[in-house]
């Protein structure tokens, strides 16, 4: 018992500020440099058809992208590169939300989230589990995971929707009280293209229930998930 108290006190506070950039090797948002000649090799090699060539330049659909790095390897010009930044961070700075302000604004508000694995590889789920570790400490934002859809403001869906879970997704959504939000978390839930179309897959979350917010990544890093949840709290506040 003493050892336990000692260990807890010794560590003090380990919670960190959330950050949208990872290690320099991290495969994050794609950047296309000027020497791109629009050859389209990246688009051809992409396993989930996330790239289309528009106006002679690749345009990436981050709802589908699994951040595999194949397009970057294939680009002979070296024009396409991964930055070490989360796509989510970009979306939020675009809407002029500074993290610090955002967090202060969120204090005093709450969001109750129900998770539903609709057919994921479990990496998205594990990252969601990591949100409760002392480093990300989700509770400091007034966000909590709840045990029942009947207690939830938001449904957080991971994975492509499988045939074996389609009904569970519909029923869980219906069981939630209004107003309700749905977040598609990760490339599978957002784009549904990870494994292609198969006999066992119905598609992305949006093919079954209305989706309000999408978090790119395979899996999205915990910071992205937190940012998206804070944004969701805003959307919810508007609807109340």
């Amino acid at each position, binding site marked *: 018992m003493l050892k336990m108290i000692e260990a807890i006190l010794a560590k003090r506070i380990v919670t960190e500020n959330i950050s949208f950039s990872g290690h320099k090797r991290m495969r994050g948002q794609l950047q296309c440099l000027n020497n791109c000649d629009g050859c389209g090799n990246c688009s051809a090699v992409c396993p989930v058809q996330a790239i289309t060539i528009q106006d002679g330049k690749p345009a990436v659909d981050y709802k589908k992208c699994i951040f595999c790095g194949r397009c970057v390897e294939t680009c002979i010009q070296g024009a396409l590169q991964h930055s070490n930044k989360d796509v989510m961070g970009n979306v939020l700075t675009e809407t002029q939300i500074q993290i610090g302000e955002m967090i202060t604004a969120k204090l005093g508000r709450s969001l109750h989230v129900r998770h539903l694995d609709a057919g994921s590889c479990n990496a998205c789920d594990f990252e969601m589990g990591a949100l409760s570790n002392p480093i990300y400490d989700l509770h400091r934002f007034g966000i909590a995971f709840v045990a029942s859809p009947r207690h939830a403001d938001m449904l957080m869906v991971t994975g492509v929707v499988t045939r074996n879970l389609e009904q569970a997704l519909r029923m869980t959504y219906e069981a939630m009280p209004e107003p309700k939000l749905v977040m598609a978390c990760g490339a599978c839930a957002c784009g549904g293209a990870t494994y292609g179309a*198969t006999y*066992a897959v119905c598609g992305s979350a949006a093919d079954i229930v209305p989706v309000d917010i999408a978090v790119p990544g395979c899996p999205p890093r915990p910071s992205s998930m937190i940012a998206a949840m804070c944004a969701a709290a805003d959307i919810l506040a508007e609807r109340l």
Partner: protein
Amino acid sequence: MLQVQPENLRGAANIFSAAGKNPLAAMFGADETLRGGGLAIYCLFYNAEKRDMDILKAEFSADGDLSYPSLTPILPAAAWYERELHDMFGFIPREHPDLRPLVLHETFPEDFHPLLKKYPVDYQVRGSRKYEMLTSAGEGLYEVPVGPIHAGIIEPGHFRFSQAGEAMLQLDAKLFYTHRGIEKAVEGKTPFEALPLVERICGACSVANTLSFCQAVEKLSEADVPRKAWLIRTLAAEMERLYNHVGDTGNVCAGVGFSPVISMGSRLKEYLMQLNEMLAGNRFLRGLIVPGGVNCDVDENCLEEIDEVLRELEKEYRDIVHIMWEQNNFVNRIRTTGIIRQNTAFELAMVGVGARASGSVRDSRKDIGFGIYDELDFAVVTETAGDVEARIKVRVGEVYESIKLIKQLISKLRKEPEGSLCVDLGMLRTLEGSWGISESARGDNLHWLMLDEEGRIDRLFVRSASYPNWPALTLAVQGDIIPDFPLINKSFELCYACLDR
């Protein structure tokens, strides 16, 4: 490989299993009609003495009778494989004690067998087949249904408990909810095209699945994977075991609400996930291992960082373990809870931590010795009690062994001269079966691969470590009280995604 008539499969399997010495490691079907064959069943037996797999094949004519004498009465480990063969190909194992569906749930029609080549990959057909749960009935008995959507952040599965008061009399698990049809989805793709899908079969076993798959591919080539690549691959494999085991040590405490340790374990796991991102650019080590070698090097800074984090982590981990064992009410809950006896572990051909906590020494790193494990010094940790405590002890022991392995790998990588990281595999041999194995945090992970004439995937079978251990979980809970289920479940820490594919 030995090919037999379907009627003789049971007899031959009995001989191949050598009275249990060579456990059934996988059993699956293949549709070989496109190249003039029939339908086939393959059985792989794990032969630790020969450090190889013994392969048994039975061929059926495609339009003829698909029934054969079931292996399950003599090899209980075949029970789920045969249910899967029935679902996916329509084979009929006669005298199978429980031929309910396994993979395909109620929305599929009875006569749809997706792995037959006549069905295109995206064939959507609806029906209504029955999936009955196994229950016990009698005076005072009642059922408790749980799932598929659980209260916490866990993968989906439906559990049906038959209760006699608090005691669990029987448990039936309905799984395969996250079945995505990956084995069918990779058919017709080249191994390179299939790789991102294979990496995404499971998050927590991403390295293990990729490593098994890559080895299966590499066995079809004349080229040798560079030694340096093997050092980096092995580093990744041990990092995967480490982050899983460290996280699971904390997580098992969630089964009894022992919060301080849950939180400490999850913090240490997070540090390891950050190392993963540094190593591979992805927190689940995706994108590092490729057929022929690895994708990127690890430099001195990287090694230094790993070394440093692990030194601190080992100290803190020892503290956590100390805190766990010092808590009598915790030890009380885990001791004699959820027992799997040694003969059950052998009969079900269990793998990994689950098996090693029940007296088995099965560890593919030693038994098969893939890659460079033969050069490395590590012990196989075993226990005999087969309860939750034994499984925790094995996991804790393996954490220290993994740290020891990573230290050796770091010093070997420092000495390793600059060199190629990936070899061109050239032309791959086609129409030849090939397997690859690796030891995931949950036990050995086995892939079977066959390429068609054009070098595209004709059949991939993925037998994850969780496959043989899931049926064991349903036996382990019998007689324990229902509040112990989460604890027992977490002590096995099985994947759903790996199993469901």
